[in-house]
């Protein structure tokens, strides 16, 4: 059975280092709603590749600095 993975993100940290950029500002730059940014930050939504690139572009960093990939722990 293939391993399950979680998409992690550093959006909150990157917002902090971008002069405490607001969620609304990031949403406007990425062309999405604030709710979507909130959901991504909370790990409730895994964005499409296009949106992931747009968010990375908003911070002027590479996509791997924004999003990560980790194996899910087995639930026993």
């Amino acid at each position, binding site marked *: 059975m293939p391993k399950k993975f979680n998409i992690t993100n550093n959006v909150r940290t990157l917002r902090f280092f971008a002069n405490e950029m607001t969620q609304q500002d990031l949403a406007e730059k990425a*062309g999405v*709603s604030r*709710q979507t940014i909130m959901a991504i930050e909370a*790990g409730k939504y*895994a964005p*499409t590749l296009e949106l992931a690139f747009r968010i990375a572009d908003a911070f002027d960093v590479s996509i791997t600095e924004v999003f990560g990939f980790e194996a899910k722990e087995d639930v026993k």
Partner: protein
Amino acid sequence: MTYQTKKTMISLLTSLILLFSYCITVYNDFSKGLIFENDARFWARRMLLFIAIGVVLNIISFIVFHILLSVNVSVKGSTTDSKEINRKLELEMIEDEMDKLIELKALRVGYIVSSTGFILSLILFAFNIAIAIVLNILFLSFFVGGIFEGFSNLFFYYRGIRNA
């Protein structure tokens, strides 16, 4: 609470009001003995009337909702500049990929409920159950499907769609 969830709640509220008013009207007519089980024309008229009321109620509720939203944006932003209000409204009303995905998933739930009602009504019709019951199950299943769709929408916004 964002625009999409507010919009869903308005539509849910409208559907619930319509459903309850339909049930109350039918119950009142039934208690007065005005309803005949096999009068399909009566039921067709009654259902068409409620569909028309539903369309009008939806239009009115959305107009009122958007007026209130504009007022809210102008009060919050302390501005009367229409361009600025429109810009803020556009930002608020933006529909992105997550909204579309949630809408699709909720729509699927709605279709499952509606089609279950449709199949149930066909089964009942096949077993010679009164046409009034068959038509009502069919009609109500579409209403209930819409309500399920609304609740699923809110649920997906609350829980998120991690494994989309």
